């Protein structure tokens, strides 16, 4: 036997639950990106006024009395959790019915010891749901699909004795079967409106016309289509969690490492049982000031090695320490298949991944997050524009032909550019003051003008000059730049 609970118009119920002021008003929930939202759901009062699902914001705004709210997924998730919990109280085997939001099917076979009969169970289930602030239909039938269809179509509680499914289904409209649009159009053309009318057709005739789906629909309409229940079980990934509450607040990170090590070990044991490694660790610290502090450690490759994972967490927490003492710890892991690599006999030896990861983490701690990695040129006119991407060892260059025919001039870039003082003669640099030295400009080429990003607030502009500078016996060829926006001069770099 199955009991199905179905909260009609679930989204509006969820919204009304979190915003009780809506209960007495006609309201519509809009979904989509502004300004192109459309009505996703509307309560009965709004629908009576003429609001239809799919209307645009402009159209629904023409109904002055209808309150408009954006659809809140969080409200729906929380409402669904409430219903889930209630369902769990009535049966250990429950299944979520994807087709209808908030709908659960409960296997109530053998629940007779707790409840007198199915009707009582259904009534109690409904009362419990109503007590939680929702309206739901509950249907009981020995056929899973019949119960789902009845819950969607009949208000309140309906109990169908075994063997009477076909009669119970006969009066239901066809849409309860969850038809494809094409099937809906076909049946509408045929003038078949109820499950009873569909059940009255010969199965063979239906299959001859709409193929094998006809068999399924026919059986559904007669309440004989069987269902293999797949009860909801906690997932393996969801189980990769360890938590611990400390007896007293801890401020020193080192003292946590012992606990973290134990927790990581426990997680790894579980992961290894499934032949998996840890790809990500989410460290949640419950702080003394009642706040939660989260860090995510993501090794470059999935690891099965506690010391490395521990070291990575330690370095990360040292770089980003919490602001208060720690009173509890949670460790959430994400698993992945472990990394396996075939090393070539003649390829240069690369560092062992775990050690490389720790080295990079140490460097990040030392230099900062965005300063460790491999530089990559960007597609941008901005001088010396590059970005740092995750460390990637350079591909070994072929032995010959790497360089062009001509010898290239090397240019040493000042990062960041150094501020300098420049005296002008006409529009051209004449004297440069740099690092306490006064240089005369012997030769000058420029300006070379570059600017860009005019469409955003990152608008930039540079006038660059190549100059041969001379101070006493010291001579250098440099690139200096003027930023018209800040009216400042910079030393960009020096040519070798």
């Amino acid at each position, binding site marked *: 036997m199955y009991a199905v609970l179905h909260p009609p118009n679930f989204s509006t119920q969820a919204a009304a639950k979190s915003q009780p002021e809506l209960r007495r008003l006609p309201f519509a929930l809009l979904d989509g*990106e*502004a*300004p*192109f939202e459309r009505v996703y759901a509307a309560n009965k009062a709004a629908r009576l006024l003429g609001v239809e699902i799919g209307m645009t*914001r402009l*159209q629904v705004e*023409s109904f002055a009395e209808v309150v408009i709210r954006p659809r809140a997924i969080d409200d729906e998730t929380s409402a669904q959790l409430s219903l889930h919990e209630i369902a769990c109280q009535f049966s250990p085997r429950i299944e979520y019915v994807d087709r209808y939001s908030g709908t659960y099917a409960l296997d109530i076979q053998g629940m007779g010891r707790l409840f007198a009969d199915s009707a009582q169970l259904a009534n109690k289930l409904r009362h419990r749901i109503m007590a939680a602030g929702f309206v739901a239909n509950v249907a009981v039938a020995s056929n899973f699909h019949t119960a789902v269809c009845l819950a969607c179509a009949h208000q309140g509680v309906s109990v169908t004795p075994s063997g009477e499914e076909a009669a119970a289904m006969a009066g239901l409209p066809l849409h309860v079967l969850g038809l494809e649009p094409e099937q809906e159009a*076909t049946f509408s*053309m*045929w*003038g*078949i409106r109820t499950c009873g009318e569909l059940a009255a*057709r*010969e199965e063979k*005739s239906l299959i*001859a*016309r*709409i*193929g094998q789906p006809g068999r399924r629909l026919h059986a559904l309409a007669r309440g004989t289509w069987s269902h293999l229940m797949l009860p909801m079980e906690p997932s393996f990934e969801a189980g990769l969690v360890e938590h611990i509450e400390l007896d007293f607040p801890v401020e020193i990170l080192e003292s946590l490492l012992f606990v973290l090590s134990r927790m990581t070990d426990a997680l790894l044991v579980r992961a290894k049982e499934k032949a998996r490694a840890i790809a990500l660790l989410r460290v949640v610290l419950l702080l003394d000031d009642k706040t939660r502090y989260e860090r995510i450690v993501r090794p470059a490759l999935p690891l099965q090695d506690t010391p490395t994972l521990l070291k990575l967490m330690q370095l990360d927490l040292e770089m980003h320490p919490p602001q208060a003492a720690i009173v509890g710890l949670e460790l959430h892991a994400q698993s992945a298949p472990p990394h396996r690599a075939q090393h070539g006999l003649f390829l240069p030896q690369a560092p062992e991944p775990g050690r490389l990861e720790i080295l990079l983490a140490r460097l990040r701690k030392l230099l900062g997050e965005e300063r460790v990695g491999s530089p990559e*040129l*960007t*597609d*941008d*006119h901005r001088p010396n524009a590059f970005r740092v991407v995750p460390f990637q060892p350079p591909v070994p260059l072929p032995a010959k032909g790497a360089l062009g025919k001509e010898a290239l001039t090397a240019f040493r870039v000042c990062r960041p550019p150094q501020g300098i003082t420049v005296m002008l003669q006409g529009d051209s640099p004449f004297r440069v003051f740099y690092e306490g030295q006064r240089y005369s400009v012997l030769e000058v*080429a*420029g*300006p*070379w*003008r*570059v*600017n*860009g990003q*005019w*469409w*955003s*607030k990152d608008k930039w502009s540079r*006038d*660059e000059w*190549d100059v041969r500078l001379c101070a006493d016996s010291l001579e250098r060829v440099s690139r200096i730049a003027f930023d018209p926006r800040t009216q400042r001069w910079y030393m960009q770099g020096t040519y070798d």
Partner: protein
Amino acid sequence: MTEYVELHARSAFSFLEGASTPESLIQRAAELEMPAMALLDRNGVYGAPRFHMAGKKLGVKAHIGAEVAVSDLGERLRPALYLPHLHPIEPVRLPLLVQSPIGYKNLCRLVTRFKLREKKKAEGAALLRDLEELGEGLVCLTGGTEGPLAAALVHGGYDAAQQTVERLVSIFGQQNVYVEVQRHLNRQEEHRNKAAIRIARSLNLPLLATGGVNYVKPYDREVLDVFTCIRHRQSLDTAGRLLESNAERHLRHAREMQQLFHDYPEAMKNTKELSDRLCFELTELGYEFPTYPVPDDETMDSFLRKRVDEGIRKRYLPKNNQALYRKAQAQAEHELGVIKRLGLAGYFLIVWDIVRYCRNNSILVQGRGSAASSVVCYALEITIVDSVGLDLLFERFLSEERGEWPDIDLDLPSRGDRERAIQYVYKRYGELGAAMTANVTTYRNRSASREAGKALGFDKQTAERLSSLVSAWEWKGPSDTLANTFVAAGLDMKNARILKYLEMCSRMWDLPRNLSQHSGGMVICQGQLDSVVPIERASMIDRTVVQWDKDDCSDMKMVKVDHLGLGELAALKDTQYLVRQHYGEEIDYAQLPQDDKVYESIQCADTVGVFQIESRAQMSCLPRTKPKCFADLSMQVAIIRPGPVTGKFVNPYIARRMGKEPITYLHPLFKPFLERTLGVPLFQEQVMQVGMVSGNLSGGQAEELRKAMGGKRSDAVLASLEQQLNEGMDANGFDAATKAEVMRILSSVREFMFPESHAHSFASIAYTSAYVRFHYLAAYTCALLNNQPMGFYSPATIINDAKRHGLKVLPIDVQHSDWRCTLEPLKDEERTKYAGPVALRLGTLSVKGLRQEIGTAIALARETNGPFESEYDLQRRVPPIRKAELTSLAHVGALNWTGEKHHRRTALWRVHRAAQSVGPLFEHIRDEEDSTGSEPLRMMTAEERLLADFTGTGLTVGPHPMAYHRTAMNYRQVVVASRLRDMPDGIYIRISGAVIARQRPGTAQGFIFLSLEDETGISNAIIHPQLYEQNRVAVTRGKFLRIDGILQNQDGVVNVRASAVHILDVGDIDMQSHDFH
């Protein structure tokens, strides 16, 4: 004047590679006091006429040239390989300047050659051997970043660059190659310049400083960047190095250029020298009027004269009016004289030849526009308007003083026949002798907002939707600006990117976007058009197009013939055939009698489906103006146009026709030319004459006024003439009030008006269509349905109207219907019940989702092997038919008669089985159900049938949907359309019906006009803007409406001024409404 001439500039006609119009470039050159300037657009001379015309006006010499892609000169310069970039591989482009008329011809031929080498519309590229052949008269520059020198330097170094320049010298000669240096404050460019200068010195070639200009002012770089994004389908954030690195490609003053090139003064000096060498101007186009091959003993003039003589006899002798005949002969003599002096005989003969081809191949053709003012055109059967009889002014068409060439527009039946005529011209005059004129698509509201949106990084869907936010009604309220649209859509106008977006939208407006082909304009120049203007492939197969639009062609004094498609002509041609087949009569459209009964039907606005006078506005005039003759009809056709409406000429004309207002003239001088239109100007010519007579304007000035009519320039033209008009009116003794009224009349040139000859041409088609509708309703309705979409009303409205006139309409039936609608003889017993000898059988073309080849195959299978026995039989005999098609046929009742008569649901039940594949083994084997059939489904109700009809075909042959609700409507005291005419003016009334037309004309201050149809006819409602604001959804989306309001029943014109609008629940019937937003 300065010593610098800009010789390398691209305009927005380099489509997405330039950001300023040719006019603004040359305007800026004039401001900078440049004596001349050159325009070198990408692969063509698209902008040359505008550049030339603007230069002529501003006194700046316009040099012409182009940047021509050359595929075997290497790839265009791209950023170094180690730099990430998105530059595509393109061939280098060689800047070529035209030095002499031969050079211009060669350039045009060069571009044409490589453009036509492509199989379809494409950029294409020339080959060096083309340059060797066609290099004479051209001066070659080595180019900037797009050029061969920069590419060779980077790809192959100094030696390769030198070899490239040597190759150019060998092609163009030592005197005609200039080494170009550009300075855009770019380090790499300067590096290349150094090498270029070394090459120039070593080969003893002159240096030339150029700006490599892409836009007028530095600020325009932003538009260019957006264009670059559009061209490469990127956004500004992702385009990277595709964008400009700075804003230096603008037009500079000589002083600035001197500073930039202070170290190479000769490069500056050479610009002036080279400019002086370039002696070609676009006035020396070398265009000659097309010639027509005539027998050896004839000249074109004598040949034309003979044809005209024959025509005059043929046209006028049957009229039995000697005076008219003599007058026509005299007028023809006069016109032939003018034609001879202007050397236009070939042009007239070419048009005559096209018309003759059409006549010989049963293609209806008729000249429209000002050509109808010419008796020569009448005699050559180009037009059907007797210009002598109607006393039309030939000078409006052709005059020696005006120096403007004739423009003959031919109306041809849409689609196939028109294409046949166009292909005949291609065949007759060769691929290089005839081509379509171009149509320059510019960035308008919606396209600009969509593409600017994408470039600024809004996702595609958002950009599409934003562009759709732009108000689509023809009439725009003062608040309907793009900015307000964005605010209304909830966009944050303080956001910098959104503001930039809005700004870019407006800056891109009216800049060229791409070139397409004009709908029908053709230029012809016997075998040598490619030396006048480059020709390229159009996207349509077998079509070529010149690089100039029709205005440019006209500015360049080229004559063109317009082949315009007119659906009505196709309908009339079909009617002629059907009448011959089913009525046994032959209609000669040229000799239709003037029938009073036809005019009576027009007078009571019984004109659904009649050309030009079927619209709601026309119908509301007809009962008042009551046209009684052809001339009245011409005025009627001309009256509902933007010019007369905004000029407030309509109401006075109607009042005078009704005798409610005396016929007066603003000034006695106006009487001679306004007398026939009751003192009110209705035609273009009359407004011109008002100007000429009152303000003493010359013919040329009046002509300028006419040309500006309906265009953006009208205000400027009017302002320029204002002083002279005032002086003239003072001299003629006009008082202040009259002067103000004359100015008001002249200001109507802002909007479009018909020339009188054109009104006559259209009136003749209108009369013809009214005539055949009156006398051969079945044939005409059948032809109209077969040529949809056309006209004002949907097929459902046309059929309902025909049914009200007694036509029997038979449903779609695969046992009788062809693909097109057909006529079937009425049974004897039905003849008294219905009008005419035939009934109309709907064709399967109305069935939505049915392919034409299947419709035709069904008819063929039936004709070959007899009627279908069942749905299964049909499926077997027409195997390619799809399940969806069978279902559609069954759904609309077209299979009810296959085998024994059965209902639609049975047919549906059977087709679903028939269409289900049983596999090859059992394919042709009948089973039990096939032969016996089963009927397990219940019949459709009347409402279901109606719904199926409208869903499946958009129309029904059964009762009108409103008929099913009449009892309920009666209960609510709703009045049927046919009774409105008999109800008194001013009463409160309710009407209802399916909305068949919605209009919000630009001239009606936001009022909306709705036409509702019920089973008895059409009723009209007027919606006040305020009521519209309150009921937007009902007015714009409601399929069936009930409207309450005050009845206006004046002079036979019936309207309801709405005070309330309600949507009626009549089911999900999808009635089609023709909405003119």
